[in-house]
């Protein structure tokens, strides 16, 4: 890196470009954080206040239920939001694990074995992603109601897994195609079964692809709004529809929405950050012949 971006004109230009990009991408995040820490009147002041006395009122408001007494507001219990965040986490991570697991196994099968009608099947798998989700919401809702899956964690996990597994299969097939089959053959001759060879030799080399696929799947499941809105009410409600519902009867609670959004951003941001090394290699994988 240091060599490529050495001293000189190129170096300065690169820094300026990066700065502009950073400002462009980080301002909304700054805005969310600042809004979440501002008192109600400060949020709407024009020109915006860059210096203000931060307050945690919005976070407290988001996380708790209060009642107004003569001595001022009094906390009487936790709001549903923490639980909804937990729901998002469980549903997001479990469905991601399932989708990536199933996707990797089926991608391996499609990559390595003679499967009859392989291309048709791959196309069929992809075709499940061609309809916009809204189109299938009503029939799915009816099916889920008949199966008593409405407002269950399992229901949403199933839905998100189904939705993501096609994507995971396609992505992972690309990654596994790149791994020479001689490695497994070597393992087969070295005394291992096909399954052991898959676990011990193929998977370690597919880590990059698995990480990249997992990040994409998690982001999709984590941010999903439409299904979560229709298919859940209380028990399994996830964060996105809950945040939207803050724009409710008593006006738009911008401060609380900002606080909720910021907390909601954190898990995916941390997960992506942990995976960043793999992710970078992941997106360029296959584009460069090693």
């Amino acid at each position: 890196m240091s060599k490529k971006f050495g001293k000189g004109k190129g170096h300065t230009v690169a820094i300026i470009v990066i700065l502009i990009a950073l400002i462009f991408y980080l301002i909304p995040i700054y805005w969310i954080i600042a809004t979440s820490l501002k008192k109600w009147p400060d949020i709407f002041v024009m020109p915006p206040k860059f210096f203000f006395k931060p307050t945690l009122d919005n976070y407290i408001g988001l996380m708790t239920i209060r009642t107004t007494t003569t001595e001022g507001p009094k906390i009487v219990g936790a709001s549903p939001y923490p639980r909804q965040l937990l729901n998002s986490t469980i549903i997001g991570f479990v469905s991601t694990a399932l989708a990536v697991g199933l996707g990797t196994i089926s991608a391996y099968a499609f990559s390595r074995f003679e499967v009859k009608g392989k291309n048709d099947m791959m196309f069929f798998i992809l075709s499940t992603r061609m309809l916009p989700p809204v189109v299938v919401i009503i029939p799915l809702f009816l099916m889920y109601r008949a199966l008593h899956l409405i407002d269950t964690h399992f229901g949403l996990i199933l839905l998100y897994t189904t939705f993501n597994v096609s994507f995971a299969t396609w992505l992972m097939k690309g990654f596994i195609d790149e791994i020479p089959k001689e490695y497994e053959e070597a393992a087969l001759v070295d005394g291992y079964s096909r399954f052991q060879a898959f676990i011990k030799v193929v998977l370690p080399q597919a880590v990059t692809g698995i990480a990249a696929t997992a990040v994409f799947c998690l982001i999709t499941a984590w941010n999903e709004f439409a299904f979560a809105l229709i298919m859940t009410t209380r028990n399994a409600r996830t964060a996105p529809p809950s945040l939207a519902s803050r724009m409710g009867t008593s006006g738009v609670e911008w401060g609380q929405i900002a606080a909720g959004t910021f907390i909601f951003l954190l898990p995916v941001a941390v997960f992506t950050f942990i995976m960043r090394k793999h992710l970078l290699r992941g997106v360029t994988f296959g584009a460069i012949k090693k």
Partner: protein
Amino acid sequence: MADVRVQNLTKRFDDVVAVKNLSLECKDREFMVFLGPSGCGKTTTLRSIAGLEHPDEGDIYIDNNQVNDLPPADRDVAFVFQFYALYPHMTVYDNMAFPLKAVKMPKPEIEQRIKEVSAVLRIERLLNRTPSKLSGGEMQRVALGRAMVRRPKVFLMDEPLTNLDAKLRSEMRAELKRLQKDIGATTIYVTHDQLEAMSMGDKIAVMNQGVAQQIGTPGEVYDHPASLFVASFVGSPAMNLLDCEYRQEDGKSVLIVGENDFILTISDELGKKIQDDATDSNLILGIRAEDVFVRDEAAEDTVQAEVYVVEPLGSENIIDLRIGENMLKVKTLPTVQPDIGQTIDMWLDKNRMHLFDKTTEKAIS
């Protein structure tokens, strides 16, 4: 150690027949080489023996046990791949320990075995490296090591020297041969390089288009090629092949070479054999470059030829001669240096010439 027997093996890929009714046997402790151009079925045969391909017809025996339906893991064979296939996420040590862990060998014994083998292959200092930090030759040794630690019944090697540079290849050739003799391992080795086959093999199976053309010792394959293909594939420079016609003239058996370019008198015995065995009188005459000689003066059985080009190789010269429309390569001492265009007298060693039926391409002998 064990012997390997392939019986009537046929393997198809869709419409392509990769191996056609192949039968051969590799005896205990023997170094057998499958030699042929790419696509001749040699690798497919090797993979079938390893269990990486399932034969469509025929049987494979290891140690007199039919292994057709055994998975590769249960055949007790080691396979060295052309691209080595060292597990990239493991160190050299772990690569070599991998097959031993499969049979749940205790750790001290694994360590002991790896120590022994790495000493033989001189790779002790590489044990903690990952394959990406190794040179081609080192990877090659590690791949061999991974095969050797197992002490398998049979070693199967698929062009293991192809990716090395020329100097390293010739070093490894000798080393591999010595190693094979030292550990006395039954080895089947696939190559397209006739030099490797000749120099290493106890026995060579020359293959073309899925068919074994000839199976024999390097000497047999070189001196008595069974078909036109073997004659042209084995040996460097390739054997000279000239169209000729068998005739009876004045009660003598003769061969008219080319468009009446020259006439060779042959023994009546050979003439009779041609009459008995050949499809018709159209034959191909084969003679190696070292069996043609340049003579100082014309004699009864010498032929006049024009020098087309001289290739000095240091220890010898290869002289290309033109006789009519035919070209003939001659191996001579480096001191023989005729000028281009010069006419010289050459002599063919008739005892060392080969005749092939032009229709069946089989040798007449």
